[in-house]
């Protein structure tokens, strides 16, 4: 049985979503399955029609403009695209958080097609029981 890594992705800034994308890519490259639970700000960025501004975390606010312009110039893949690519390489499952979906009136159809289902935290945590690590991003 292959190993599983679980990620709770709550942040909606592009650096955090990119971190989830990069780690997911590294995991599937190593034959590790990944479960991602998308909640709070991240769920907003996983909406199909999301048109909110891409921001970086406050940590780097002094150099945000520079980093954003470099990322655009070098056409760096977004974290969401990295997760989409990782799905083609390995076993990656993406779930939306039922609580946040209810709060914002978001249904599965409103979310990116890679989101398999909207599930409650109980179900997600039960999935993490067999994970060797769970990350909160």
């Amino acid at each position, binding site marked *: 049985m292959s190993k599983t890594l679980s990620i709770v992705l709550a942040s909606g800034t592009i650096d955090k979503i990119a971190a989830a994308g*990069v780690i997911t*890519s*590294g995991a*599937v*490259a*190593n*034959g590790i399955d990944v479960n991602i639970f998308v909640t709070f700000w991240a769920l907003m960025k996983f909406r199909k029609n999301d048109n909110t501004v891409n921001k970086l975390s406050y940590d780097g606010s002094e150099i945000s403009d520079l980093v954003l312009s470099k990322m655009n110039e*070098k*056409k*760096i*893949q977004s974290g969401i695209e*990295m997760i989409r*690519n*990782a799905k*083609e*390489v390995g076993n990656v499952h993406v779930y939306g958080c039922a609580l946040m979906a209810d709060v914002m009136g978001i249904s599965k159809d409103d979310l990116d097609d890679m989101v398999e289902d909207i599930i409650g935290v109980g179900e997600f945590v039960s999935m993490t029981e067999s994970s060797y690590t769970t990350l909160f991003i």
Partner: protein
Amino acid sequence: MDVKPDRVIDARGSYCPGPLMELIKAYKQAKVGEIISVYSTDAGTKKDAPAWISKSGQELVGVFDRNGYYEIVMKKVK
């Protein structure tokens, strides 16, 4: 290098983890015995790709420093 690749992936201009992911996708589609070559301008790929090739039990044919990019060549052996 006198081996002619069956598949060439031009991942130049793509950044980590792009070239490695492209290589793995090509590997999954390839048949045993095929030679796969990936071009990359991303320095990380030079270490990443050979590490993946050896970990997954494939054969690393070589890492070549071309003019301004790297070419990593592998053979799918299983």
